[in-house]
């Protein structure tokens, strides 16, 4: 592909502060017995790890099950696992064999996303920064990512809550 235009796309950055020591927060990110208890995007989902080799160069495979029984499989490839403060990984939609799938509902979503988790302990609490960045996005992928990001602060979430309530009644 003759792509002379370098696409610059700002990452999405999430920051949190947890009332917990840094090692526990790091373990929660890197041990499946912890991960299965929180690594899902909505209350009511369940999460199950079928494999977990969580170290630099390793990978894990887990599924999330929605309340209506829909299974989403995710393959995670770990680039950097440095206890207790750094974790870098890429996550992919996959099937249950761990084969990476294109995103069927959203074909122009960036194919590769890197998540970088940085932890820092400050006076008994742990600060977390998660940097979520598309890897070498095409122009279309960059636009899709931007379009989704713009929804965070636009009252769209409220709208979606309303939609969600409506959809539940069907």
């Amino acid at each position, binding site marked *: 592909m003759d792509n002379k235009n370098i696409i610059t796309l700002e990452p999405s950055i999430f920051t949190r502060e947890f009332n917990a020591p840094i090692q526990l927060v790091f373990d*929660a990110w890197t041990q499946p017995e912890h991960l299965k208890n929180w*690594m899902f995007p909505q209350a009511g989902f369940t999460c199950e790890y079928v494999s977990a080799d969580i170290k630099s160069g390793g990978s894990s495979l887990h599924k999330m099950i929605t309340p209506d029984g829909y299974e989403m499989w995710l393959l995670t490839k770990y680039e950097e696992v440095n206890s207790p403060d750094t974790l870098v990984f890429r996550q992919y939609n996959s099937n249950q064999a761990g084969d990476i799938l294109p995103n069927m509902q959203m074909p122009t979503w960036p194919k590769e996303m890197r998540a970088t988790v940085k932890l820092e302990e400050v006076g008994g609490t742990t600060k977390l920064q998660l940097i979520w960045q598309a890897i070498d996005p095409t122009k279309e992928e960059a636009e899709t990512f931007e379009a989704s990001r713009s929804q965070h602060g636009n009252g769209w979430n409220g709208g979606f809550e309303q939609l969600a309530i409506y959809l539940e009644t069907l």
Partner: protein
Amino acid sequence: MARARTTFDPFNALAEPKRRALLEALVVKELTVNQIVEIMKWSQPMVSKHLSVLKQVGLVSERKEGRYRIYKVNAAQLKPIQKWVIQFEQYWSNSLDHLEVYLNEVQSKEVKDG
């Protein structure tokens, strides 16, 4: 810049705030063009333009009743988008919420056990 794909892609169709507002109005109830003009305080051409995009991506469907056309949300098309939005947009912020709850749980257990 060229955004010609809007009509092919439900998600990009929804990237436009006016179309989201229109969709949210239609979630509440079915409406005719005139009713939308009244509720949204937009011109009729503007309403028709946005309705036409939402129709082309299948997010809104229309039916005829006498000389009126009545528009409603097509939930079957919206549902996968809602799943998608949950999965990607709210993925990290919601997961981090769960992490916080979980860390508090784990630590309160440790205190009790100890």
